[in-house]
């Protein structure tokens, strides 16, 4: 049990660091996937531990939503690239106050 959770925490942390530190939006999106999968591992582990199917179902849900989210994210990214010729988060400062 502990090992699984450790793996889950590691995956999540790697993802979080990736989201925070990388400037390429493509990599940021991939990192978000990593975070989601870290959570999935934890959910499955707990589901096994409690002998309960809810966690498995919820993982399926998360994967579906993640697929949709990546679809939308990539579409946005392509549209952004067509407009701005960049996918670097550091260059996108239109919201600066």
């Amino acid at each position, binding site marked *: 049990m502990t090992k699984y959770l450790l793996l889950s925490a590691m995956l999540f942390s790697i993802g*979080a660091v990736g989201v*925070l*530190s990388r400037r390429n939006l493509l990599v940021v999106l991939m990192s978000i996937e990593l975070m989601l999968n870290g959570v999935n591992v934890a959910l499955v582990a707990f589901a096994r531990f409690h002998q309960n199917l809810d966690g498995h179902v919820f993982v399926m849900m998360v994967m579906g939503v993640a697929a949709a989210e990546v679809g939308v994210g990539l579409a946005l990214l392509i549209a952004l690239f067509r407009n701005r010729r960049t996918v670097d*988060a550091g260059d996108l*400062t239109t*919201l*600066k*106050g």
Partner: protein
Amino acid sequence: MTVTNETMIALIPALPLAGFLVNGLAGRRLPRVASAVIGCAGPALAFLLSLLLFLASRTALTPLTNVLWSWMAAGNFTIDIAFRVDALTAVMLLVVTGVGSIIHVYSIEYMKKDPGFARYFAYLNLFMFSMLVLVLADNLVVLFVGWEGVGLCSYLLIGFWYEDLKNADAGKKAFIVNRVGDYGFLLGILFLLAIFGTVSFPEFESRAAEKSAALLAAPALLLFLGACGKSAQIPLHIWLPDAMAGPTPVSALIHAATMVTAGVYMMGRLWLVYRSVPWVCDLIAIVAACTALMAAITACAQTDIKKILAWSTISQLGFMFAGMASLQFQTGIFHVVTHAFFKALLFLGAGAVIHALHGEQDIRKMGGLWRDLKVIFVTVLVGAFALSGFPFTSGFFSKDAILTAVYEQFVQKEAMFWPLWVVLLGAALLTAFYSGRLIAVVFLGKPPETPEGHERVIHRPGWLILGPLVALAILALFGGFLQSGLDGFLQTMNWTGAEEPGHEAAHLLNAGISVVIFLVGFGSAMLIYGFRRDLVDKILAWDPARGLYQLAANKFYFDEVYRWTVVTWTKTAAAVLWFIVDRLLVDRLLVEGAGWIAYRSASALKRAHTGVISLAAGAMAAGVASLLGYLLFRFLINA
């Protein structure tokens, strides 16, 4: 398929409503003929249905009711949208739809060239709908819906030619003055609701006797305040003369025949409440008699043909209330019926004269019209005879009935109020006088001098104007013979007890006096204005007469008194509220101040927004981390 009585009850208001919807929504795209046909079809069909219902309710032992749906329900208190046809409602239905249909037909020609033709018929139909809801209502709240509806339509139609600011102002005046009355009316409804725990008329009737008079005085007074507004009694009568700014058929329908009698109808509907509070009835009689006399005096000094008729309407409404306050309700209702005939006739006749003279309303610029407008002259003469009580016309019977009722109540029973009877006789005398003056100045005598080469051009009315006039003239002439039938029909209302001994004697006395009054009033007016116009100046050279004339010409200065007491103060208060409270306090301090604070704090805070996504994400992660850290901390402390 057979149409049941219940369906007919619902159809009567629904037909004008349908006409309103069609003309109101699609009126611009319809040809005029279609607007006119649709506009007249609703009331005419409603009249036919009312006639059928009248015949049905003549044999019915209990009132016909139709509960459409439950409007609101709270616990065991419910208000239904319910209609009921008893004898009183059946009579009012016939008057409203009958006279209303005639006036609709007349309007086709009168409004022929008006750009707002379809809008006019839409409003008129909406008025018919509201008025029918008012008389059909089975409870006070539904009645109030109709009551407000007719007020709205009155406002819309007074200001029908709203391009002229004067007309729009007259509409607003009518609406605002009525607001005062309606406020009282609403309070009265709430009082009755608090006392009875219900608003339905049958329940009032079955339980009014068990309530004490002291309890019922307040609602009776407040409801009468509402009636003062709608039916133009002192002190809320000031809107009705100004309401003449609307088209003349509107004055005939709303401001003479139907809407203004709503207050009288309301008293007949709540007769048990009023009968149990005698002192309120005394007060109403005093107000009514004063109104009748004051308005009759004023009518003698007016020069606008429609204003004369408006003041006459106020005066006749005073008569109706006097009849109601004498607790002989059938007399007041009878006068409502006959007054609807002859006053609608007079207004339509006046409208025809105004139409013929291309909008001229000043009677001093008329004169000698009988040669050119023979049919109009004869019908208006019939109307004036009925108004002033020429023997055996409709007005003679109904006014005589009221005078007898007042005589029996206030001279024989409550002798201290005998002046009321005398005041009403005086009002009747003046009624005959101004009717005679109207006829003499407008139709007799010589036409006024016109500049050389400018012949008076008279626009001859067509049969759509003459037909309604003749129909109403027949009703005004012979309507009086409906009296015994009407009284018999209204027996089911249980208004009257056994006939008083000496009723016949009182009746004969009042009838005799009425005839004398008619002869003196009408005759002297004919003599003065028909033959010896120079007598007017001679009479007015006498100071008291001139003073009274000034008073009457200025409508007893009611408008001025209101201007100095209510209007000025309200306007000052409004100006203070507008400038100090609204402009300075709300606008400057609260609205602009809030904006200023937001703007300032935002310009300080905007530096925090760098627009760098990873920074924002980092801040969010830090926030989540600190929140989790806090929860962990709490968990460790508790554990």
